[in-house]
């Protein structure tokens, strides 16, 4: 876990604002207070390119640009490709997990989840990237 969680800037991507709020609240519970939101992959990509984000938490199924495409676009962008991306989805289908892993997802979490589960996933990712 990083020394000052409030320093890490999150982008939460989901088309359902209730869900963005849920994720935001869970992150807040864990001390991550620096959170911005985007309503789909396209908006998210724009924000990521413009701002200095440290972490992306994205839904899979969204209009305009889905989470997988967002992930692929992030990995394809030299400036962003190191960015940790945690995928959130309602599915725990094997093929989904595989395509997320292949596209370079840093983690995968299935709805619904608790702050503890989220923390566990985040900690793993932080360890990996050395934040």
């Amino acid at each position, binding site marked *: 876990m990083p020394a000052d969680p409030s320093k890490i800037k999150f982008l939460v991507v989901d088309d*359902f604002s*209730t*869900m963005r709020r*849920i994720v935001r609240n869970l992150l807040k519970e864990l001390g991550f207070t620096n959170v911005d939101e985007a309503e789909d992959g396209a908006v998210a990509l724009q924000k990521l390119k413009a701002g200095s984000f440290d972490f992306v938490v994205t839904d899979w199924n969204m209009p305009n640009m889905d989470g997988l495409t967002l992930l692929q676009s992030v990995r394809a962008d030299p400036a962003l490709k190191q960015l940790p991306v945690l995928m959130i989805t*309602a599915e*725990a289908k*094997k093929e989904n997990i595989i395509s997320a892993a292949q596209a370079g997802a840093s983690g995968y979490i299935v*709805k*619904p989840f608790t702050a503890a589960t989220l923390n566990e996933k985040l900690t793993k990712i932080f360890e990996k990237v050395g934040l």
Partner: protein
Amino acid sequence: MSDFQGMEDLLQDFLVEATDLLSGVDNKLVDLEKNPADRGLLNDIFRGFHTIKGGAGFLNATELVTLCHLTENLFDKLRNGEMEVNNEAMDVILAATGTVRDMFGYLERGAQPAPAPADLLASLRAAIAGELRGAVSAQAATPALAPSAAASASEPDWQQLFQAVTAAPAALATAAVQAASAVAAPVPDPAAQANAGAPSEQIVQRAIGRRASDKPGYQGPVGRRDSERTRDNTIRVDTARLDQVLNLSGEIGLTKNRLNSLRSDILNGRSDTDTLHALDQAVSQLDLLVSDLQNAVMKTRMQPIGRLFQKYPRIARDLARGLGKDVELVLAGEETEIDKTMIEDLSDPIIHLIRNAVDHGIESPADRRAAGKSEKCEVRLEARQEGDHIILIVADDGRGMNPEKLRAKAIEKGLITDDEANTMDERQSFNLVFLPGFSTKDVASDVSGRGVGMDVVKTNIQKLNGSIDIRSSAGKGTTFVISLPLTLAILPVLLVQLGEQPFAVPLSMVREILPVEIAAVQEVGGRATMVVRGEVMPMYPLSYLLGWSSEGIPEYGVLMQTAESAFILAIDGFMGREDAVIKSLDDFRPKGVAGVTTLSNGQIVLILDIKELLAALGDSRGVPRSAFMPPADIAA
């Protein structure tokens, strides 16, 4: 009490957003019926259920998750072209959508939803397994566990993971067992079963806005008010609008500072032209800012009426289908904005009107053919702003109303007398449908023949300070026109005087102001009347309506128009018009007083409820001419 302790905020957000989403899904389903192969639509609907499922998971609403998941799986197959949209699939999907809505009802009351009907779940599973050939009742012949077994065989990973994630394997298993037993049970009525858990009666009930709490034997907290309050207290506002409010209040703060400094200047004896000019400017600016702020605050309450309209195409479709009619509900003016409280209060009246149009207004397909009309009918629901009013229109292209028949019916029902009927013009005859106890169909239909409804529609519209009017032409159709004020908070009023005492009457009812010559007041049938441009108008002195003793002969008459009648309100004088900010007197509401407002000079003025005052007159609806004379004059 609530199943959602500590999650109330989340629940509220979810309900608001998910209800919108579901209405969108409903409309897309209606479109889908027309374009069953539209991949974009299928995708959107899939995503709708998927999103609701995701949110429901966080609320631990297991039953909702299960239902959405199954429906979503069905759409996954449909959008991947593994299955085609047919009537049976549509019926299952619509039933599922309806049940999702019912479950929202539970959530609104703060309760976890009950499981979806077992036969619905079974039909969904059967449909996903591709076994929805013709009738679901065919399932009765196949081994009971086939559908769920098939589902789990195709997705073993999911089943396991899903259970691990939702931690609710018991509920799932129970649902599966229920589904299985329902399928295995003998099927008394194959046709009903083919409807996949949504017999037409059920559809109709849902369409006319019954709630789960209306069902006999329902144990939960009853009382729609409760549940509505759950939802009432939140509103989604465009941040740009809130910014404007913030900006204006900031400006007002600055102007207040300016006024404060001017005040100390003036108190210190400075009264030169420059100071007074600055004061004048500051006050004018404050005036402008405050009215801007009022507008801006009002706008935060305004919502596009499209959010209300969204749910009607589905309702119209279900009703029409149940009645064997082909009706398309055409929407227009969805972007028109209207006060949020009004949106909620308009919901039921509009359902009644649409129901009425589809059931009574639109002819049967055979009748339409005979009349040389297209079998496809159109019901139009339209909103637009006209000046400071919102106009809502519900129009059908059906048979139109027959004034003769309406009058005959009203006489038969004892609602009016022969004499009254003879003096009625077309418009008055149409308005008979608003009388309590009026229903034109001899056989009450399930849909709208109970004779309740239209009078309720009118009462509800009037409660919103609105009016409703009917236009109809035989063979061409009927149009209901609802006119509503832009907001309930501000009421334009005319200030009238009785002696020195001012009273406010709604300006919307005022047609004109005329001088009253007591000699021109004539008594007709015991009622004081006055002829205005050839029209005989009953005349009521305000003092008489209020039960005051009259002190002088009224000098002015205000010609007022209600939905039913026009009359002259006799007064002593008038002060002009004002935009009254209504303060309601909810706790002790004297008869005939709608509320109070404060004038610019600080005086408190009662806003009169004219209709209530008239109703207090009783059946006679007449005031003798002597009521216009002070007692002394009569004696003389």
